[in-house]
């Protein structure tokens, strides 16, 4: 830092701190009158903080009953997907400095799944769809005695969809999923894509059969909300379009 030579007493590289207001949509199933309600908290945060840090501060210092999920807190486990200022984001990957702090940051549970408490939703319908596309390698024949070889080109074919962390940000950003919970949803299709386009996998026909359902890929209305919501930058709508095209080209 060049500043140290001119003003050695100044605290070098001090991170600015400021007050942020968080506005939560809360729900307590054990309350006398279980109705969702809004509640605001103001905490002091640092310029390097993420939304999750501010939420921790609320939970640890102001109100321990605020309920949300998080595990790794570094964008890998996919536990803390929530609706931040109207868009699905991971709280641990959203920096406060990227948000408009002149207004309260609005935090709501992801949409379309039953709310258990505050920001915690029941993920079971989401994982049920995930299991239905058989997210595992299907290969015939004997157990191989050496690894299944794959060229870099074949690996690159489905590279994008291997990045999914199953946070449900995409599925719960989908207007079709909000109104029709039977729809498989973007995440299940992304994970089917990961195997359908894997040259070592032999279950593509079965998976396409599953997704050719009334509630399958054809429900996709290409709103691109999922692509925008994905914290891993997966081009979700593109993957769904590729599955749609595979269904047509492989059928004939």
């Amino acid at each position, binding site marked *: 830092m060049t500043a140290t030579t001119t003003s050695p007493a100044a605290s070098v590289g001090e991170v600015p701190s400021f007050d942020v207001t968080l506005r939560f*949509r809360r729900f307590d199933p054990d309350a006398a009158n279980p*109705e*969702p*309600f*809004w*509640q*605001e908290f103001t905490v002091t945060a640092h310029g390097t903080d993420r939304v999750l840090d501010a939420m921790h501060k609320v939970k640890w210092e102001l109100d321990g009953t605020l309920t949300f999920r998080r595990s790794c807190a570094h964008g890998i486990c996919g536990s803390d997907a929530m*609706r931040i*200022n*109207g*868009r699905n984001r991971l709280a641990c990957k959203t920096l406060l400095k990227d948000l408009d702090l002149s207004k309260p940051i*609005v935090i*709501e549970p992801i*949409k379309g799944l039953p709310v258990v408490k505050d920001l915690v939703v029941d993920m079971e319908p989401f994982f049920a769809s995930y299991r239905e596309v058989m997210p595992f390698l299907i290969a015939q024949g004997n157990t191989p005695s050496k690894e299944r070889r794959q060229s870099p080109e074949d690996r690159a074919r489905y590279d994008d969809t291997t990045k999914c962390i199953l946070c449900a940000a995409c599925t719960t*950003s989908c*207007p079709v999923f909000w109104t029709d919970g039977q729809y498989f949803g973007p995440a299940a299709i992304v994970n089917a894509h990961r195997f359908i386009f894997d040259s070592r996998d032999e279950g593509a026909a079965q998976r396409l059969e599953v997704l050719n359902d009334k509630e399958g890929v054809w429900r996709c*209305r*290409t*709103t*691109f*909300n999922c*692509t*925008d919501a994905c914290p891993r930058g997966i*081009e979700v*709508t*593109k993957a769904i*379009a590729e599955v*749609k*095209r595979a269904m047509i080209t492989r059928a004939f």
Partner: protein
Amino acid sequence: MPEAPAGTLYRGREGMWSWVAHRVTGFLIFFFLLVHVLDTSLVRVSPEAYNAVIGTYKNPIMGLGEAGLVAAVVFHALNGVRIILVDFWAKGVRYQRVMLWVVVGVFVVLMAGFLPVHLSHVFGGE
């Protein structure tokens, strides 16, 4: 501070709002077609009844409705082509936003050609 417990609207981007517009225009066109089939089938009842019904359409409110109908059909048709390209053209997904602005541009050009002519018929008399 328990306030109105409504959730906020999801803040989707161009893709979501074009889908909303597509659905709204689709609904409008559907209801037009419903009425259209009914009034046209009146010809089979009697040509006089048909003429009487069609005659009631000749007023400024229906004229504006017709302008809205044309706008709905034009947008729905153009955006429909965009959706087909998004689904079945390999590069469609990448250019979806560009294609939406093309749709809006062509829509504006077509409506700019149509509206002055139509509105002068509606409000200018024969």
